C-alpha cells in the first residue's frame, strides 16, 4: 500500500489509466488481502500502550455505533455491494474525471478503496472460524461472496477494453509522463480491471476452501480426542 500510494508510483497513477488501475488492484485487492492474511491486529493490540488500549481502542471498538457500523459492512450482501459498488462508482466517467482532477477527492477515492479492501477481505478470509455473533460468516457464504464479486469486474473490465474509447476523457486532458497512446492505455487499464481482479477472486476462493478443510480437520481431531478421552474414562 505504501509502495503504490506514497512513492513516485502515485505520480504515474495520477496520469496513466493503466497504472491507476494497478494502484487500485494493489489497494483494493492484493495488499488488502495480504494484510488480512497476515492478521496483524492481535499483535498490534498487544503492542499498543495499555492506557491507549484500555481507555480508547477497546471502548470505541465496543461502542454501539462502531459495532453497528462494523456489523452492517460485514453483512455479506452489503460487503459485496460495497466492494463492487466502489469500483463502479470511481470508474463512473464523470466521477472519475472529478476524482482525478481534485486532490481531496483523489485522496477519498484511494482511502475508500484501501479501507473497503481490508473490510471485504477480512470478511472473506477471516482466519477465525465462523461465528455469527462476531459477524464471521460461514465458509459457504465466504465462497459465494468472493466468487460473486468477480463477475461485475469482468464485465466492467471487458467493457473498458472493448468499448471504452473516449470514456475516460481525463487522460486526454491531463497529459502523460511519457508519450503514450490513450487508447493503448485504456485497453491495458481494462485488462487489469478484468483479468487480475477476477483472478484474485479465484485465489480468495482457494484460500477459503483451504481454511475450511483445515477447520474441518481440526474439528475431526478434536472430536477424535474427545471420543478417546471419554473411552478411556469409561
Amino acid at each position: 500500500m505504501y509502495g503504490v500510494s506514497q512513492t513516485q508510483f502515485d505520480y504515474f497513477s495520477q496520469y496513466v489509466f493503466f497504472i491507476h488501475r494497478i494502484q487500485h488492484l494493489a489497494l483494493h485487492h492484493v495488499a488488502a488481502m495480504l494484510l488480512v492474511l497476515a492478521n496483524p491486529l492481535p499483535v498490534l493490540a498487544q503492542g499498543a500502550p495499555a492506557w491507549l488500549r484500555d481507555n480508547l481502542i477497546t471502548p470505541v471498538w465496543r461502542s454501539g455505533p462502531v459495532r453497528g457500523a462494523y456489523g452492517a459492512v460485514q453483512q455479506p450482501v452489503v460487503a459485496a455491494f460495497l466492494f463492487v459498488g466502489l469500483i463502479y462508482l470511481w470508474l463512473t466517467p464523470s466521477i472519475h474525471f472529478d476524482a482525478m482532477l481534485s486532490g481531496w477527492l483523489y485522496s477519498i477515492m484511494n482511502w475508500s478503496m484501501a479501507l473497503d479492501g481490508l473490510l471485504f477481505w477480512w470478511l472473506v478470509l477471516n482466519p477465525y472460524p465462523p461465528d455469527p455473533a462476531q459477524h464471521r460468516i460461514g465458509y459457504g457464504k465466504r465462497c459465494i461472496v468472493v466468487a460473486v464479486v468477480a463477475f461485475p469486474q469482468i464485465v466492467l473490465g471487458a467493457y473498458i477494453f472493448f468499448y471504452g474509447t473516449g470514456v475516460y476523457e481525463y487522460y486526454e486532458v491531463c497529459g502523460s509522463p511519457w508519450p503514450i497512446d490513450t487508447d493503448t492505455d485504456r485497453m491495458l487499464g481494462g485488462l487489469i480491471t478484468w483479468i487480475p481482479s477476477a483472478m484474485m477472486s479465484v485465489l480468495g476462493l482457494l484460500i477459503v476452501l483451504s481454511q475450511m478443510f483445515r477447520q474441518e480437520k481440526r474439528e475431526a481431531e478434536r472430536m477424535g480426542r474427545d471420543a478417546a478421552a471419554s473411552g478411556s474414562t469409561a
Partner: protein
Amino acid sequence: MKPRSMLFAKKRMPRWILTLVLLSGLTVAGCGGGQDWQTKDISRLMPELQFTLTDEHGREVTADAYEGKAVLMFFGFTHCPDVCPATMARIAGWLGQLPEADRERIRVLFVSVDPDRDDAERLRSYTAHFHEAITGLTGTQEQLRRLSKRYRVTYGYGDKDENGDYDVSHSAGIYGFAANGEARVLIRQSDDREAVLADLERLAKTVD
C-alpha cells in the same frame, strides 16, 4: 444480556445501512458540481491561480500580475505540431467572437513546458502569431512541475531524433480562472464553441 445485545444490534443495523447509503449518495451528489458552467466546472475541485514563472519578455512574473483579469491557461510547447497551434488558433477564434469589452477582460497564458527550446524571444513571436491577448510563459523545471502538479496535469519528453527534435506529451485542457483567481472551468478539446463562448463571457463578467 447476550440475547438483548444481539437484538439491539439487529434493530440498529438497518439504520446504519441507511446512513451509509445516504452518506454515499450525498458524497456523489456533492461531487456533481454546479450546472451553470457549460464546459467542465472545476470550482470546487481546483485551487486558485498561483505560480511564479518567466514571461515572454524575460521578466519573472507571478499570478498577482493577472489579478483583476479573467485568465485562460494552457500548457504546451512551441514545437508542438498539432494540439498547441490548433488550440491557440481556437482560442484566438473565440476571442475574436467575443464583444470587445469582454475580450479586454481576458488574458490567455500559454505555459511552455519545454523551457530548453522555448526562450522568451521564441515565445514572444509564437504568441504574437495568434492573438495579442496571449502571453507566453515558461520557467525552471521546478517551477513548471509545481504548477502542473497544482493543476493535476503532467508532461514528459520523448526521445530525441537525429536532428535533436523530440516530442513533448502535455495536457490538452484549458483552465479558466475568474478575476479573483479562483478556478472555474476546464475547457476540453471536445467542448463545442457555443458552450465555450458562453463560459468565456461569464468568466469575463467576473471582472468588475
